[in-house]
């Protein structure tokens, strides 16, 4: 390949155009996060809606310059209205929920918008009109550069300038910037947060919608747009520093350039390039290029109820759960066994994530990496090394352990959302390596024929094996949680400074927790691969990680049972409804209902329900609050 100047320039200009598009979407996400602290996974959906609406509106309007740009703007505003409406109807109800719980709601919104879009526009891709007057290409140094790209290159900085003006020259903008720093104080000065949040959601969603509508002349509009862009947009926001618009612009440039030139230099891992850039930036600057440390001092930590060793009632509940699973497996027929096996595996996976999230205070957006690495390791051992099942099961989690030790070392240097983003980066790097190294991993085709040994071939026996291993693993996790290590971990979670002041090396403890969590995810992974007989890159992709995250959060982070309840109900319900045509829509609505009705998760909700029934029935137990206050 000869690199001539014209070609390089062409790549460069194409990168700048992509950067503008990326920036529009990312700036909206960054503004929303800055003020509301919501990690909005639905932002990619707003982008997709912008594209569909832009397509429909510009088609409906008379062709011409005014029709195109007018239609684009109307589409952006419409998405802004949709975003504001979602904020009012759903998100406003859950601002008081634990951190990251809103994330579950935004994920439900992704599902709902997916199916709503499918319903309105159908599954066929749409090709929109070219921008009138900008449908040609100009020749620069022998390369043809689309005129529309040049327009996009200009639009990015123009929008950046406009946002700057709004943020510095209007009272609203000053309030937004103030709220990005300390929203509680802004409230204490008499500013209505709800109003501020809704307007911020309007602006942020409108920017995403604008990004989507402007994309119509460049690519076909499809249902894949939301998830295709969301990971990259998060990367941009995190690199720039969450809440910083200028940061989003610089980071969008950086990512677009690395994408354009990375593919020339490192084609083998081109998919991982943005995530590698993010990891490098976060390790050097843990809060992004233009971000500032999250001021923890004003965040009233929810003091969680102390974990107690399991009482009689809970032991009984566990036995009932196991009995229920066995019943499902042996009375539910073939289908019942498969579902019960899945539930055990997924419960263990969720419990492993809960270990680092609930006890360690570290949310992971990429936990599937350790699940998948271990599953792949087992598949390698079984197919390439010819190991039988049990040794492969025993050895494979070591791979997860090593990977967790490696990535965890970097991740625990950060905290909060930034830590979560580093875990996502790690998982994406692993995923793209597995996906692109097809000589070894089979790439998209995966590895097939990883079956259990003869004695465990029957589904019922394999279920019992899974149940036994899963139960042992869960008990071990419990033991660790109640060992001194678990106490130290919770101390570090609740107050890092105080824990360090009494001599705890919090970082090392969190690292160890990260590794433990990875190993147990790995155990779930090996159980999975032998249950399915195959492994595909999907198992370590983002959706798999998010499933686990949803299970833990929906179940209840503050409860030991939370992840198990979350995993079981999530798997069961999704399994039941996924045959329906618009099941995502239904599933999204169900998730939102849980989020609103049980802001402390299913476990917390059940507990409150139980207390309420107990109080009604007259045998109220004395709560600590009542006992002391009188």
């Amino acid at each position, binding site marked *: 390949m000869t690199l001539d100047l014209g070609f390089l320039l062409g790549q460069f200009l194409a990168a700048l155009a992509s950067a503008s598009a990326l920036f529009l979407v990312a700036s909206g996400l960054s503004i929303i996060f800055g003020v509301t602290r919501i990690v909005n996974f639905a932002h990619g959906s707003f982008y997709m809606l912008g594209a569909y609406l832009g397509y429909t509106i510009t088609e409906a309007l008379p062709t011409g310059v005014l029709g195109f740009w007018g239609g684009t703007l109307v589409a952006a505003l419409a998405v802004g209205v949709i975003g504001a409406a979602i904020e009012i109807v759903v998100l406003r109800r859950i601002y008081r929920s634990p951190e990251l719980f809103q994330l579950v709601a935004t994920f439900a919104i992704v599902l709902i918008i997916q199916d709503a879009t499918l319903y309105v526009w159908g599954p066929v891709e749409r090709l929109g009109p070219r921008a009138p007057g900008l449908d040609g290409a100009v020749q620069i140094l022998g390369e043809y550069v689309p005129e529309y790209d040049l327009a996009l290159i200009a639009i990015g900085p123009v929008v950046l300038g406009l946002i700057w003006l709004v943020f510095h020259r209007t009272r609203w903008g000053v309030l937004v910037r103030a709220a990005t720093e300390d929203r*509680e104080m802004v409230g*204490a*000065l008499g500013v*209505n*947060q709800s109003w501020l949040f809704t307007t911020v959601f309007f602006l942020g969603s409108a920017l995403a919608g604008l990004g989507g509508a402007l994309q119509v002349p460049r690519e076909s509009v499809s249902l894949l747009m939301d998830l295709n862009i969301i990971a990259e947009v998060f990367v941009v926001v995190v690199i720039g520093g969450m809440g910083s618009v200028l940061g989003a612009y610089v980071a969008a440039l950086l990512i677009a350039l690395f994408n354009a030139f990375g593919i020339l230099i490192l084609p083998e891992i081109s998919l991982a390039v943005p995530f590698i850039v993010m990891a490098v930036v976060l390790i050097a600057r843990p809060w992004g290029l233009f971000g500032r440390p999250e001021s923890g001092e004003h965040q009233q930590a929810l003091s969680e109820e102390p974990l107690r060793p399991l009482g009689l009632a809970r032991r009984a509940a566990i036995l009932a759960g196991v009995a229920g699973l066995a019943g499902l497996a042996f009375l539910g027929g073939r289908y019942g066994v498969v579902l019960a096996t899945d539930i055990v595996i997924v419960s263990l996976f969720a419990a492993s994530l809960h270990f680092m999230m609930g006890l360690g205070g570290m949310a992971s957006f990429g936990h599937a990496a350790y699940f998948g690495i271990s599953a792949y390791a087992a598949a390698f051992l079984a197919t390439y090394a010819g190991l039988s099942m049990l040794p492969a099961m025993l050895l494979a989690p070591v791979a997860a352990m090593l990977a967790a030790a490696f990535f965890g070392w970097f991740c625990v240097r950060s905290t909060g959302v930034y830590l979560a983003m580093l875990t996502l980066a790690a998982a994406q790097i692993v995923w793209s390596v597995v996906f692109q190294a097809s000589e070894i991993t089979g790439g998209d085709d995966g590895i097939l024929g990883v079956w259990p040994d003869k004695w465990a071939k029957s589904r019922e026996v394999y279920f019992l094996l899974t149940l036994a291993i899963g139960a042992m693993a869960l008990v071990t996790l419990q033991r660790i949680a109640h060992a001194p290590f678990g106490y130290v971990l919770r101390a570090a979670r609740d107050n890092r400074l105080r824990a360090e002041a009494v001599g705890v090396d919090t970082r090392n403890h969190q690292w160890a927790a990260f590794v433990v969590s990875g190993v147990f995810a790995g155990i779930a992974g090996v159980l999975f691969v032998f249950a399915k007989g195959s492994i595909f890159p999907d198992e370590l992709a983002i959706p798999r990680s998010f499933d686990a995250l949803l299970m833990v959060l929906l179940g209840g982070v503050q409860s030991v049972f939370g992840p198990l309840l979350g995993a079981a109900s999530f798997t069961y319900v999704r399994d039941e409804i996924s045959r329906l045509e618009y099941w995502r829509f239904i599933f999204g609505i169900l998730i939102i209902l849980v989020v609103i009705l049980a802001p402390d998760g299913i476990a917390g909700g059940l507990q409150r329900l139980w207390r309420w029934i107990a109080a009604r029935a007259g045998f109220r137990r004395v709560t600590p*609050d009542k006992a002391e206050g009188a």
Partner: protein
Amino acid sequence: MLELRGIHTFYGAAHILHDVSLEVRPGEVVALLGRNGAGKTTTMKSVMGLAEARRGEILYEGRPIRGLAAFAIARLGIGYVPEERRIFKQLTVMENLEVGRREPLEGARVWELDELFTLFPNLAERRENLGGHLSGGEQQMLTIARTLMGAPKTVLLDEPSEGVAPVIVEQMAHTIEALKAQGLAVLLSEQNVRFAERVSDRACIIESGRIQFDGAMAELAARPEVREQYLAL
């Protein structure tokens, strides 16, 4: 003006305030005295709706405000000056003041910018500087000026003399006298007893989340054993 009747405040499961009652009248400065961790800040946060007072009553101008959102409480005319100042560091002095600006309520004392700059001359020179670039004393002035931009009728001042130079402490005393002279009600939390004695009419002493003494400043001065027990370091 502002009255707390037997409030109990919790942080999560931790019971911080026990049956705290106190009252502040217009044109009166009430000092809330106590050691570190006694519950002074929590009392102020309970009034502002920033900490959860689960039981008891908080009355402002006769109406119950417990359970209202912080912004709604602020809009009734209660200005809050937090201990940690909580200046918006990335905003200029003028922008910080803008965040505090509110449409004045009826009968409220409105503070013009010029007046605030006369009260706090240092701020006038630094109006275009970022909040984060101000000295501790200047930040203390800014946080009070920011609250006064909202034309409050009652001001909650959380340890204004803490960690600032003696000159600034002096200025804080003048400021409190100015607020009092304008008929504002002031609840002042302090560890610096001498400072509190100078500017306050009455004193409430809080210890372990319970009010231990409530009376005129002169009364407290006459009871050295109370000071010894609850305030000596």
